[in-house]
């Protein structure tokens, strides 16, 4: 049972029941246990390629897409600048920390470089948000796309800070607790832990007073303004929070990849993040992770899939594009939207026979 269902049941039976229902591990739905166990025990079954190239990437891209999902799903603002925020955090870590470009990197220890990088990225994301909230709907997409592109051109041209076309390589995670965090199993658990944290943080914030007010702003900004909420401030705060998640993901991205270059923040990757969030479903925080898993799997195995259909292997974008188109065309809520749709369809099918579909 989802917590939403618990909450609605609590509405019928009163406040005390609700508090009881949310306490203790016994009330966590069984599917959370199942998914948690599968993810924790994954390294037993999967080889290091799958752990590193598929799950590592999926968790990180999923986190960036999660920040977009938070803005889009709860705030009603679709921002294409999230990849730029993550990329800026990655760049800043390379600039302040250590990298293979010693003439630029300052060589600070990681515990200082990481927070500074995150703060700078969050400030950048918040300023982007402050600009973007001056506009609505479709304009937001265009403006954030333009900002992301400007960022891409800027890092490609700037050699004093961003090292231009080459970017930075050998940006490695610290050897903390005697573990090399770039090995497949450590990085799997590292990215899993941060992805889970980000997921629960988003779930928590979405039910906090701020998150509820934000959803109110999404649904009816005028009414919220009339109720005394500062609509602009809520929206900008949403950008700041989303930028934080994207910035953390950016740090993990540069550790996983060991390098960051203008290609990481180009228009293509920025749109990939939107594709991931939409494929998975933009209404629930789990959607981006599902989308990321599908995206990364397609990207990794595109060659084999396409060759088996007799199409040249380099047509990966075509496969992703067609998958994306099919999903937006038939299920605007992504993969997550398919389940309620299927239920509705099954229910309506059985209603033909007079059965109201109660079996479901």
């Amino acid at each position, binding site marked *: 049972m989802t917590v939403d269902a618990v909450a609605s049941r609590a509405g019928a039976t009163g406040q005390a029941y609700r508090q009881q229902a949310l306490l203790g591990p016994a009330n966590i739905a069984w599917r959370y246990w199942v998914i948690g166990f599968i993810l924790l025990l994954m390294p037993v079954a999967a080889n290091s390629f799958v752990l590193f190239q598929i799950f590592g990437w999926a968790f990180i891209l999923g986190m960036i897409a999660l920040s977009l999902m938070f803005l889009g799903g709860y705030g009603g603002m679709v921002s294409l600048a999230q990849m730029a925020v993550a990329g800026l955090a990655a760049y800043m870590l390379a600039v302040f920390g250590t990298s293979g470009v010693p003439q630029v990197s300052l060589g600070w220890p990681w515990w200082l470089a990481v927070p500074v990088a995150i703060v700078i990225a969050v400030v950048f994301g918040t300023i982007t948000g402050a600009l973007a909230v001056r506009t609505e709907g479709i304009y937001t997409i265009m403006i954030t796309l333009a900002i992301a592109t400007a960022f891409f051109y800027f890092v490609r041209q700037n050699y004093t800070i961003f090292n231009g076309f080459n970017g930075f390589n050998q940006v490695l995670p610290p050897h903390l607790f005697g573990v090399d965090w770039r090995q497949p199993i450590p990085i799997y658990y590292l990215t899993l832990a941060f992805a889970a944290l980000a997921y629960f943080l988003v779930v928590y914030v979405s039910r906090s007073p701020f998150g509820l007010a934000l959803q109110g702003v999404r649904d009816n900004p005028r009414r919220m303004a009339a109720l005394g909420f500062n609509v602009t401030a809520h929206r900008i705060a949403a950008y700041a929070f989303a930028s934080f998640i994207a910035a953390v993901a950016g740090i993990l991205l540069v550790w996983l990849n060991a390098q960051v270059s203008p290609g990481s923040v180009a228009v293509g990757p920025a749109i990939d993040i939107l594709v991931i969030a939409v494929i998975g479903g933009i209404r629930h925080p789990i959607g981006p992770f599902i989308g990321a898993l599908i995206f990364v799997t397609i990207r990794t195995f595109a060659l084999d899939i396409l060759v088996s259909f007799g199409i040249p292997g380099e047509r990966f974008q075509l496969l992703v*594009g067609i998958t994306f188109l099919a999903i937006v065309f038939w299920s605007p809520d992504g993969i997550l939207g398919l389940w309620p749709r299927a239920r509705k369809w099954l229910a309506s099918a059985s209603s033909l026979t007079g059965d109201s579909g109660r079996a479901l």
Partner: protein
Amino acid sequence: MTDLIQRHPAWSFVIFVVAAGIVWAIFSVWPPGLEDVMGKKKVFLNALFNGVTLGALYFLVASGFTLIFGLMKNVNLAHGSLYMVGGYVGYAVAATTGWWLLAFVVSFVVVALIGVVLQYVVFRRMEGEDLRQTLVTIGISIVLADLMLWIMGGNTFQILAPEWLGGPMRLPLVTAVKSSGEAVYMTYPVVRLVILLASAAIGILMWLALNRTRIGMLVRAGVDDRDMLSATGVRIQRVFVLVFAFGAGLAGIAGVVGGTFQSVAPGEDTRFLLASLVVVIVGGMGSIPGAAVGALIIGLAEQFGSVYFPTYSVVLTFLIMVAVLAFRPQGIFGSAR
């Protein structure tokens, strides 16, 4: 004009002084002091002409985009792909038949047909669903870009202009005076001047069509209030298809133009999509004069930027956009929403 002067006397004065300064800079022989600061006059004039020509190209792309958006509130993020289809079709036609002008006709028709299909299959089904339209058109542009890469390969193509447009032309503008007292005149490729004039002609024709014909009247009424227009009995879906086909066809023509004086290559679709986004954001969504002014500003900014601050010229255009958004979010010619 007098209206503007009465309302904003200070701004009108600034605009007048700037315009007079530019006119002086174009026609005069520069004194040595100015050349020390700004570089050679030839460089300045070339940047100016290239900027205006680039602005003309941006206007062709962006006017279709803004027309479609203004009337139907459709955000067609596949507009850049339409531009590129136009470029490739134009190249194929010009290379096989050798007729440059035929390339324009074929590109216009082919891309306009694609536009009709898009309007019927995509936009009509999702009227009013902004986000879904955006997503679907992003998907279409991904698919189209990869299909074009598949068919045409990753090479760069240039559409060859016919011979009667080849070569440079001497303009009656003095760039420098030799020590012997002989004046040096500016030369500029003929084909670019022709493209510039043709874009201006298309812009004027569009303005006339919008303001002086019945269909233009319907389109303007639709921009203002399309529900009311359809309530008066106008078959608004036909107007939509027509406008969409025309806007897409303009992008196709722009593709041929761009392929002639620059080149057609993978990645141009995103470049021109972004250029038209910035142009319409700066100029104001849905406004044809706005598209013209925005395209001119962005084209000039790009060219002057690449001459005077070469490293960050691309960022300059985005800075202009940010400045416009910060002070006038609806764009220079946009109406307040």
